[in-house]
């Protein structure tokens, strides 16, 4: 079979050194001078073939077990999504949409696995104020380093896909790590390993694009003329990609953004506002200092004190400058 495997073997039980380290970082939040990476890893990607997905939630289950999270037992609100949204305890979520295809008038149950897209240009990382709380490895994984996270929620605003969730318990931000700990020892992500139908596959990004092409050809042969790969250029491409039967309208898949980008507001905030703001505050401070140094202080003269004493004592003092004060009366 030529379909990619999600893992080369069962996870090892022998201690193994992790193979993702600081030398592999290509971006680190709030860090201007990152040492250049010591090597360039091949980019990886998780490909989610929505057309193969049966919505079984094995990915959710495997994710919870691997990451030792504790999603709450909620209630049914008349939908198959459970929990009802991503949470700090549920890094991935099947989203279900009952969509009637207007062209064929037939029902399609669109099921999309939501979760971090591992953008090449990650908005979360851009927004993050805490040095090293969000890192990007040269293989494309965007990972949250929770020890460094301060829980400000800026990543939430930075993310074009509405992914990170802040824990109310420990005030740290959580999302899919692409199982960086597994990838670091030669394993695919837990969700991809579990996926019963191979709707989730993992490998190099180049391989995944190739695999997607095969899937798209198959879908086109089954009548999905607009089948395509979702690898949005607005965020520089992603390391989690979708094969969609209707790639011309991603929004029908539970509001998957048609053309995601980091919001201009966030760009403005983290860009021009920061630079202009710092410049303005600096100029203000520096201007004050310069003025203070070079201009004479505004001192009260002895004459002023005398005038004040005269006034208090009822003696004549210079009259008010009527030309300028009369209006105020």
């Amino acid at each position, binding site marked *: 079979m030529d379909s990619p495997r999600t893992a080369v073997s069962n996870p090892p039980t022998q201690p193994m050194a992790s193979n993702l380290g600081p030398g592999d970082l290509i971006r680190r939040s709030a860090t201007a001078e990152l040492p250049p990476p010591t090597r360039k890893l091949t980019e990886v990607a998780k490909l989610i073939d929505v057309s193969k997905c049966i919505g079984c939630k094995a990915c959710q289950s495997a994710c919870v077990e691997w990451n030792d999270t504790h999603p709450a037992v909620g209630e049914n609100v008349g939908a198959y999504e459970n929990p009802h949204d991503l949470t700090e305890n549920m890094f991935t979520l099947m989203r279900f949409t009952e969509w009637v295809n207007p062209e064929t008038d037939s029902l399609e149950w669109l099921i999309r696995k939501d979760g971090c897209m591992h953008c090449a240009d990650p908005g979360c990382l851009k927004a993050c104020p805490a040095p090293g709380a969000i890192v990007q490895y040269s293989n494309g994984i965007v990972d949250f380093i929770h020890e460094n996270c301060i829980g400000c929620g800026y990543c939430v605003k930075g993310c074009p896909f509405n992914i990170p969730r802040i824990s109310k318990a420990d005030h740290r931000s959580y999302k899919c790590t692409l199982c960086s700990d597994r990838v670091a020892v030669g394993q695919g992500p837990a969700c991809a390993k579990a996926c019963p139908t191979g709707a989730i596959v993992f490998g190099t990004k180049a391989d995944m694009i190739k695999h997607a092409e095969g899937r798209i050809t198959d879908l086109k042969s089954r009548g999905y003329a607009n089948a395509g790969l979702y690898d949005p250029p607005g965020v520089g491409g992603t390391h989690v990609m979708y094969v969609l039967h209707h790639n011309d309208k991603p929004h029908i898949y539970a509001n998957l953004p048609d053309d995601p980008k980091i919001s201009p507001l966030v760009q403005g905030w983290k860009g021009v506002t920061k630079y202009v703001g710092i410049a303005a*505050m600096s100029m203000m401070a520096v201007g004050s200092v310069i003025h203070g140094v070079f201009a004479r202080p505004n001192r009260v003269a002895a004459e002023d004190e005398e005038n004040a004493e005269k006034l208090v004592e009822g003696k004549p003092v210079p009259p008010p400058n009527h030309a300028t004060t009369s209006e105020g009366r």
Partner: protein
Amino acid sequence: MVEKIQPGDAIHPGKPVTVDRYGPAARANHWITALSLILLGISGLALFTPSLYFLTGLFGSGQNTRAVHPWIGVVLFLSFFVFFFQLWRANLPERVDIVWLSKIRDLLSGHEENLPELGKYNAGQKFIFWGMTALILVLIASGVVIWEQYFAEYFSIPARRVAVLAHSVAAVLIICIFILHVYAAIWTRGTLQAMTRGTVTGGWAWRHHRKWLRELAGQRKTGPAE
């Protein structure tokens, strides 16, 4: 519009004359506000730009900084608005403020005698007062929207993005105003004691707020001789 004498303002004859400008409560409040603003500035700047992130060290950690900043904001908001209700009448704009502003060069170059006589506050002080008021409203409102721990979930992410941008811009402006305020207080010698001891000298009042002094004198609003 008649400018009222602020309660508590009074003249004490002597050499030099001293004038009560701020009572103890007002001064305490001012310093609470000032301290809050400084802490907010520090913690806010730490989260605003990575180059200042080290400032979180003052609060123990980034987590603490994130946690404490909004609460300080609440303190600032409350203390400032106590202040606001004390001072807003004295800060209402007047035509004289325009004249004063038009001659601001004379002020900066030390020719204050060319400026019109002023009441308790000059246009610069009023600008600071109203600027702070407006920005604090923007900051508290936007701050609530992005207060992750309690309120953020009630607002959409686009709204939060607007809020975080507004918060940043407002913060930059308020820091600028803060610098102006502090510098003006230092440059104008004799001012600081208004907020430390609560009094200014008669000369200071004569020089900077002559109308205010005249009014106090005219209303015989004099305290008992010491």
